Each structure stands twice: as structure tokens, then as C-alpha cells.
């Protein structure tokens, strides 16, 4: 009797869960479907934009997957990697290393910085188990302060910066924007390809593809399996002889390093660095995009990344235009897309927490039932 109802509820739960999981993407498809005709943008323009943004953002968003696998939630600390990438790029542009070699060098510089920052972040998150997200979020602010200390006061005074084009006139500190003109879209245009008026950044896509393969491979390695075990249940993993703390730290380090590389790819497409603000927004946009793609705090796949980029950025492009068309004020559209980004994250977090509580109460219910059955025997 009880078994039958059990399977039934599970089936019901499956359909419900699927709907719940895809509710955000469905909502976004609806928003886009309403906004696109109103925005009045040509399809070729839209496709071009989406392809560009895919190349620009996908690598960064992929860097979020591994901490989710390790049960550490959305890594708001990916900003740390972004800062490391920016420091690499600032140095490289002062040394006048240009083009692809400049990018490679910036990446090599960013890696040790990312590793150190990731180590720091991982250690702190281990001290704040159960509230990783808010902690990683505050870490990103904290390190932002350190970053400003380095870039605004130490660069030019202690770290040598030669060129006045990136240095502030007062003699130390970096300007608000650093131009990457000689690096701009060098990676995207390495293998030029245009299909039907749509410019495709082939090399960037190849790199993103390689990263996807690496992530798939990584899941099957010993370390990847450990991470999943830790993500499922820390205590069980510890009993199984996994070094939980080390595994968690490693997942954050990997994520930070990838974010650093991703940021360099992102900025080569943009063509300049907004020294003090490029990184501050990147975490939020990447997380929002991932969530829009149907990911949740404890589950995210590569598919979510790509779906998320398409839907989120489609909304991003059309919302201001649509807002202007409806209300005659373009600012409303601007605010609308900001609101949607935050609202998506909020909804995803609320859903995650309620599900967690439901699962917990179901578990305890089950325990009670089992106990009852035991007693009845």
C-alpha cells in the first residue's frame, strides 16, 4: 500500500520538478517573445549580438560549474579570478605585449594570482560552511578593496608602470579605462568566418568547446567524483576517506583560475578594461545567465550555460528597446533588465532553499514512518 503511493508521489514529483526546474527558462522565453517584436530589431542584428555575447561570456559562466558540483553553491567569488585576469592584462599592456601572445602572457600571469586568491577564498569558505554564498559574496567585496589598493596605489609606485597612457597623471595608480586596442578581438578574428552576415568568433568557440570537454572529462576523474561526493554529503564523503576541505578548496581554485582566463577572453572582445568596474558586475551577470538557463544552486550543466547565455542576453538586448517602445522612456528598460537579473537570482535562491527544506522534512517524515513500522512489527 505505502509502496504504491510512494512511487506515485515520486512520479508526480518528477513532472513537477521538471516544470519547476524549467520555469525560469520558460518565463524568459515568454519575456523575449513579447519583447522581440516590440524592440523592432532585425533578426540578423540579434543573431550577431547573441553569437558575440556567447563567445564573450560562455567561458566565464562555465567557470561557475565546478563549485556547484562540489556543493558550494554559486561562486560569487569568481570576481576574484576576474580581478586576477585584469591585473594580468594591465601589466601586459604596459609591457606592450600585443595580440594573442599578449593574451597568453596575461593568462599565465593571472594563474598564480588566481590560485592564491582561490586558496584564500576556499580556506575562508571552509570556515563558513553552510553559508558559502553570502561569504563568497562578501569576499568579492573584500578582495575588491585589496584590488583597488594594488591598482590604485601600488601600481606605478611599487609595481613599475611605464606608460603614461595607462597611468594616472599623478604618477601612480591606473586610469579608469585601459585600452586593449592592439588585442581587441584578435582571438575572435584569428580564424575569420562569416555565415550569412553573422560573424563567428571561431577560435573563441573552439576554446569554449575544449573547456566543455575538459569539464566533462573532469567529472569522471577521481577528483571530480570526490567533488560530487562532497557536494552530496560532506559527512558521508569524509567517512569514505575523502579530504573534504582540500577538495572544496581545489574546486574554488579551479573556478577562480578559469574565471581569470574567461575574463581575459571577455575583455579582448570588449577591447578595453574599465579598471574599477569591469569585474564588479561580471559575477552577477554570469550567475543570472546560468540561472536563466535552468540551473539551480546545486545542479548545473553545460547545456544550462548555453541556453542561459542565449535567453539572458536576448532579454538584455531587447528589454531597453521594448521598454522605450512601451513607455517612451529608455531608462525604464534599462532598469527593467537590472531588475530581472536580480529577480532571477532571488527566485532561484528561494526555490533552492525551499526545496532543501522540503527534502529535509520529507527525510525526517520517512524516518518517522520507518520507526513507526519498526514499532508495529
Amino acid at each position, binding site marked *: 500500500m505505502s509502496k504504491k503511493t510512494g512511487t506515485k508521489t515520486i512520479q508526480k514529483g518528477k513532472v513537477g520538478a521538471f516544470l519547476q526546474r524549467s520555469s525560469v527558462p520558460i518565463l524568459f522565453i515568454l519575456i523575449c517573445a513579447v519583447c522581440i517584436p516590440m524592440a523592432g530589431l532585425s533578426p540578423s542584428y540579434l543573431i550577431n549580438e547573441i553569437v558575440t*555575447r556567447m563567445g564573450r561570456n560562455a567561458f566565464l559562466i562555465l567557470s561557475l560549474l565546478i563549485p556547484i558540483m562540489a556543493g558550494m553553491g554559486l561562486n560569487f567569488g569568481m570576481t576574484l579570478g576576474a580581478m586576477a585576469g585584469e591585473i594580468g592584462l594591465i601589466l601586459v599592456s604596459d*609591457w*606592450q*605585449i*600585443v*595580440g*594573442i*601572445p*599578449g593574451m*597568453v*602572457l596575461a593568462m*599565465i*600571469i593571472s*594563474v598564480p594570482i588566481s590560485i592564491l586568491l582561490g586558496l584564500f577564498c576556499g580556506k575562508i569558505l571552509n570556515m563558513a560552511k553552510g553559508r558559502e554564498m553570502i561569504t563568497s559574496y562578501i569576499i568579492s*567585496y573584500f578582495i*575588491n*578593496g585589496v584590488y*583597488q589598493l594594488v591598482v*590604485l596605489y601600488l601600481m606605478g609606485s611599487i609595481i613599475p608602470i611605464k*606608460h*603614461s597612457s595607462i597611468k*594616472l*597623471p*599623478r604618477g601612480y*595608480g591606473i*586610469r*579608469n579605462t585601459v585600452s586593449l586596442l*592592439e588585442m581587441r578581438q584578435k582571438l575572435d578574428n584569428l580564424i575569420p568566418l562569416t555565415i550569412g552576415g553573422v560573424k563567428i568568433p571561431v577560435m573563441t568557440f573552439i576554446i569554449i568547446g575544449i573547456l566543455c570537454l575538459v569539464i566533462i572529462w573532469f567529472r569522471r576523474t577521481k577528483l571530480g567524483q570526490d567533488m560530487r561526493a562532497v557536494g552530496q554529503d560532506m559527512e558521508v564523503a569524509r567517512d569514505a576517506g575523502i579530504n573534504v576541505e582540500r577538495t572544496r578548496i581545489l574546486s574554488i581554485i579551479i573556478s577562480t583560475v578559469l574565471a581569470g582566463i574567461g575574463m581575459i577572453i571577455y575583455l579582448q572582445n570588449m577591447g578595453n578594461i*574599465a579598471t*574599477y*568596474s*569591469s569585474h*564588479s*558586475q561580471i559575477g*552577477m*551577470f554570469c550567475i543570472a545567465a546560468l540561472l536563466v538557463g535552468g540551473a539551480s544552486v546545486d545542479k548545473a550543466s553545460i547545456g544550462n550555460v548555453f541556453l542561459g547565455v542565449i535567453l539572458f542576453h536576448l532579454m*538584455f538586448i531587447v528589454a531597453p528597446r521594448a521598454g522605450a517602445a512601451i513607455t517612451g522612456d529608455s531608462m525604464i528598460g*534599462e532598469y527593467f533588465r*537590472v531588475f530581472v*537579473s536580480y529577480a532571477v537570482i532571488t527566485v532561484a535562491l528561494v526555490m533552492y532553499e525551499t526545496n532543501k527544506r522540503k527534502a529535509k522534512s520529507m527525510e525526517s517524515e520517512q524516518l518517522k514512518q520507518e520507526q513507526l513500522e519498526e514499532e508495529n512489527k
Partner: protein
Amino acid sequence: MKSKKTLLIRIISIAVLIAIAAAMFVIGRGHTVYFDNKDLEVDGTVYEAPYQIEVFVNDESVAKLKSGDRGMVSTMGQDFSMVLHITPEKDAKKVGSAVALKLPYNLDGIILNLPALLGGAGEDVYLEEFIPAPVVEDADEEVIVTDEFEMPMGDE
């Protein structure tokens, strides 16, 4: 035993990374090359500018210089080669000439005086460092230090 092996692998990978970085320093060094098609007089020798020179770098026309003009191109690495199409007089026939030279590593901007270069002068004659004119600007550019998103847009 195992730790020794991982240590070795780590050292090797770090060494490889450093080697790549060093290589990038060499091949990735960017220069801005300026071409002057101007008369130049050094120690009594006069290099006269032809009527027009067209500069090709990587089969791409980067500058068409009448006498007295200056053109520029951004390059990467120290090996620099270009093809010059020289028109000595108005309506005269074009003469092609391929030039390859090594750029000094430590200079960001380099001025090449083409008439001197074609006239067979030494490097110290045709090559000169380009020093950008100091830009006059407000002494203190306002830097906004903040831990806040100003207007969280940014993705344009």
C-alpha cells in the same frame, strides 16, 4: 615515490609555463612603426623624398605617402618586413622594393625615414625613437573609488 613524481610534474609544468611566458615576451612585443617620406640631411648627405611611396605590410596597403607625409602601422615582434612601391616622379613608373629589418626591442614607437632607408644609410640615420608629445590634461583626473555598482549595466 608518488609525491616525487607529482613534484617533478609540477616543476616541469611551471618551467614550461615560464618558457611560454618568455617566448610571449619576445614574439608578442608590439611596436608602432611610423614611416616618414621626408627629405633628410645627415652629414651633408641629402636623402630626397620621392613623389610617392605606398607601403605594404602583410600584403596589405597600410599607407600611401606623398613627399612630406607620415604613415603608421602597428606590428608584433621584432622582425619587420614591408614592400614599398615607389613612384619617383609624378606619372613615373612604380618601382617595387622589399625591405626587412629588425626592430629594437626596447622602443615602443619607431620612426623610419624611408628615403634614408632606401638610400642605404645606416640604422642610426633612418631609425629614430618616436616620443609621443605629452598630452596636456587636468592634473588630477577624478578617480571614483567605490565598492558599488554605479549603474549596473556595463555589458555594452
